């Protein structure tokens, strides 16, 4: 941690909006600024478990993006007639490793995303608030059904 401004007078930016007597903004009277401002902590996310989990969730976005790129490569290969090359690439051990990690990350991202949905949309039926677990359950059920449908179309033997 580093030392901030000293206890001398003079408002530091950002903290004391009504810094001087009779200031109009917010109209509160304040003649001095706080003494100590902790510096920014570059490792803030490592300090508590919940922050770390949050940052991990954010990082999974990279793998979600990779999954999109990979899918587009697949589509490109199908349309360009280079599917065997693509299949060979996809079968390499390091590629499988990446995709296993990507699948896990995407699932983690999807699960947490769907769990957060009730926060963004409060559903009321005739004044009764639909509880979060129902919305989450609905989301997961819908997700499972859609995934199953896609799997059915992709995996069915022609």
């Amino acid at each position, binding site marked *: *941690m580093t*030392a*901030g401004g*000293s*206890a001398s007078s003079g408002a*530091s930016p*950002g*903290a*004391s*909006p*009504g810094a001087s007597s009779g200031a109009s*903004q*917010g109209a*509160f009277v*304040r003649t001095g*600024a*706080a*003494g*100590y*401002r*902790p510096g*920014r902590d570059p490792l*803030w*996310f490592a*300090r*508590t478990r*919940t*922050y770390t989990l*949050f940052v991990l969730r*954010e990082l999974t976005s990279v793998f979600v993006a990779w999954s999109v790129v990979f899918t587009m490569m697949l589509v490109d290969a199908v349309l360009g007639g280079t599917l065997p090359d693509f299949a060979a690439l996809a079968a390499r051990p390091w590629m499988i490793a990446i995709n296993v990690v990507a699948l896990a990350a995407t699932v983690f991202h999807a699960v947490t995303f769907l769990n*957060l949905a*009730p*926060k*963004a*949309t*409060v559903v*009321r039926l005739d*004044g009764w*608030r639909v509880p979060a677990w129902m919305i989450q359950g609905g989301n997961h059920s819908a997700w499972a059904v859609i995934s199953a449908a896609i799997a059915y179309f992709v995996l069915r033997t022609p």
Partner: protein
Amino acid sequence: MNAETDTTEEAGARTIRMEVMRFRPGEDTEPVFQGYDVPLMADWAVLDGLNHIKDQLDGSLSYRWSCRMGVCGSCGMTVNGEPRLTCGTFLTEYGQGPVRIEPLKGFPVIKDLVVDIDDFLAKLSSVRPWLIREGEELPLTTEYAQTPAQLEAYKQYSMCINCTLCYSACPVYVLDPDFLGPAAIALAQRYNLDSRDMGDRFDVLNLDDAVWGCTFVGECTRVCPKHVDPAEAIQRYKLTAALRSVLPWSRR
């Protein structure tokens, strides 16, 4: 407090170590920790421990407190790394100790455990947290009707005690003090969702430093002692703002 002598002595044998952050402006350039041993009593909150220090061990310690019943919002501090109301956090929760007491993170420190929240107050004011009406007012003989369901629609967001624990827990606010922050947005939503309100707070909420600054860490909701759920308030307004941007004619 009504700590009677006999009970004090009875449990007086057991103590717990409180490590309290001290910062004296003008004298210290860096905060230091000072340790105090206080009686470990079953009924004592962290605040009672601080009061014991102030009254019996070291009168120069500064901190804020008032109602000691979790409703005035004064006594928020960082207790073992977590933002807590010290009046409702019991010493026995920390077993053998030590308990580390620091000021709320994310705010400049004035002295010891006292932080500067003027910035928070300015943010509260900026969302126009009052009932906005248009047209003729009803006379002071008639109330605006509001059904229990309409009351329920915003009630939760009206429970905020302005303790600022959510700001302290929010990494976005700690990294970027310009972020409007959880409590102010929840308060804006308290009025937005009030059936009597005719105001519009889109201009102050639909900003990079307002709802869009939120990355949905969710810590604000986790630490909120009054179950206001500011994270929900913010996400709901994101949806409102997004719909409004797509459908410019829709209000709210």
